[in-house]
């Protein structure tokens, strides 16, 4: 019998329940990570404003649908200007817009993906950087590795936290924008086209979740100081982008870009997204001259090369973070 709090006498009670399978402990890590991250107002603000690209996309598609019915009227001119500026595709003079609907929908979602990249950068910097770094800093690893949590479970849980927030910035608004646009307009064409677009949107969103999630997990496992992880993440995202811009400016616009065109990770994701959404192929198949939509597309980079760069990076990140987490798990008791 043990007296603890003066007026209470507590005695240890055995528990008669049964423990579940230890492979399924990772959802607990995800839930905990999301709950902790959502306690911060800044995270909530980023998530809320992360809907801006989707709202923009809905607006563009609504205007496109209006324009179809207003072709030839005075009001149509302003709409042509707006859509050409937003999509960076010169559609002035195109009267049979219904024939371009599918590719314009895809271009709109590509534009939205490009805009979402900025919010991905911010949300990952806020939510992803402390995922492992904070556990290291506060020596919280014994709480995980004294329980039946394996390094794989831990890593999966932490990755899923980052990926969930990226999905809340990319996949969820994309799908919501798609659904709302379907309700407000006549859709991209046939039901088959709508289904294919939905599928491509999911693939694109998942691609962004996987690549950014694994990259930040690897970075977060490097050091216990979250600030360095944030600086590293921003540097990885922005510096190659600037380098790529300088390279692009210094080369002639029709120059073939090989591996040198795959330096910027943001551009690589955009190239792969462009490929997954079939925008380049779709625009090339239209009767529009190439110079009218050149600005909407990236430089002609082989998507396989961009995907290879991102794939190598992702696999390396998984391998690196796996090694780190295994090492941490072995040090947990003596941490």
């Amino acid at each position, binding site marked *: 019998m043990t007296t*603890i709090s003066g007026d209470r006498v507590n005695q*240890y009670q055995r528990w008669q329940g049964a423990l579940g399978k*230890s492979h*399924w402990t990772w959802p607990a890590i995800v839930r905990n990570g999301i709950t902790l991250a959502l306690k911060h107002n800044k995270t909530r603000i980023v998530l809320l404003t992360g809907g801006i690209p989707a709202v923009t996309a809905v607006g563009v598609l609504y205007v496109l649908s209006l324009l179809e019915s207003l072709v030839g009227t005075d009001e149509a001119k302003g709409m042509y200007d707006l859509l050409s500026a937003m999509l960076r595709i010169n559609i002035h003079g195109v009267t049979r817009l219904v024939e371009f609907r599918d590719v314009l929908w895809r271009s709109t979602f590509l534009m939205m993906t490009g805009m979402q990249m900025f919010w991905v950068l911010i949300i990952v910097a806020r939510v992803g950087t402390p995922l492992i770094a904070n*556990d290291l800093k506060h020596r919280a690893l*014994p*709480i995980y*590795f004294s*329980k039946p949590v394996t390094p794989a479970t831990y890593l999966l849980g932490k990755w899923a936290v980052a990926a969930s927030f990226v999905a809340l910035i990319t996949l969820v608004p994309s799908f919501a924008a798609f659904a709302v646009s379907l309700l407000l307009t006549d859709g991209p064409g046939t039901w088959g086209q709508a289904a294919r677009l939905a599928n491509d949107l999911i693939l694109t969103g998942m691609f962004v979740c996987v690549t950014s999630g694994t990259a930040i997990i690897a970075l977060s496992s490097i050091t216990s100081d979250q600030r360095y992880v944030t600086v590293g993440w921003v540097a990885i995202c922005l510096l190659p982008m600037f380098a790529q811009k300088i390279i692009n400016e210094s080369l002639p616009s029709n120059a073939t870009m090989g591996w040198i065109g795959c330096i910027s990770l943001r551009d690589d994701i955009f190239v792969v997204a462009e490929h997954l959404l079939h925008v380049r192929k779709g625009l090339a198949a239209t009767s529009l001259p190439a110079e009218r939509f050149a600005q909407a597309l990236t430089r002609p980079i082989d998507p396989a090369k961009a995907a290879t760069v991102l794939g190598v990076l992702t696999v390396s990140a998984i391998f690196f973070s796996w090694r780190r987490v295994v090492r941490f798990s072995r040090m947990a008791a003596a941490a």
Partner: protein
Amino acid sequence: MTMNYIFQCQQLTKNYGRIVALRGVTLGVQPGVVGLLGPNGAGKSTLFSVLLGQTPASSGAASVLGLDIRRQQRAIRRRVGFVPENDCLIPGMSGTGYVYFAGRLAGMSHADAMQRTHEVLDYVGMEEARYRSAEQYSTGMKQRLKLAQALVHDPDMLFLDEPTNGMDPQGRQVMLSLISDLGRAGISVIMSSHLLPDVERVCERVVIMGGGEVLTEGRLEEMNKPHPTLYRVEFTGDGASFHRRLTDVSVRVLEQAESSLQIALPEEGTQRLVLQAARDSGARLFGLHPKRSSLEETFMAAIQRQRAP
């Protein structure tokens, strides 16, 4: 491996490069509250890590609760709780959230984890504070919270790494009471500590480690058993005469005070020589107490034996 032992090691060795953290540890520990003592670098934390299945042993074999540490690591961690020495708190979490999370990590369902969280927090004496952020807790509360997270899935065995470190006397009292109670509730506790009085208070058995080896182990009462020839004598009368008479009958006087003597008998069972000397010198005896070696003496002797060339 025998089921009578809560853990058992056979020639267990762990090397970190050239550093030998565990050196052929062979040990079998029976259920109960066990103290694990040793200076820094003795291998206590490494032993915990190896037994929890976190660090693979370099060679040898070990089992915890009859489960092999190489093949059944997760099964071991489902039946064992661990209280680390450091805070290991996750920032932003309340006491309740922390223990609940530990329960979920152990594989408990939401409802079970929540119910059990409140049970164990009640048990360790966390009242309203359980809803506050754990970062604001005092050292004592943090230690109790760590104990609660280790208990949430009702383990059969607990590893406690320095559970009373940095606590005030009242907090220590509470923690030691909890450890004793857990022992009575049938949970085996392995407690590493530098605080020998704490170990003496709650532990039934003691393992002393040094340099990665087990130096000595056994029941605390056996370690503290009366010395066969060393006694303290309390008396009144002529001390000098009593001293002379004792020397005449081959009893060595080690230390002399006004009314007490520390003596060494020539051999075991010769207490009658003291009675004879007292009678001959006219001294009146009040007490003849065998000297008991303290845990500290046993600990220091074990460490010195190990350091001796």
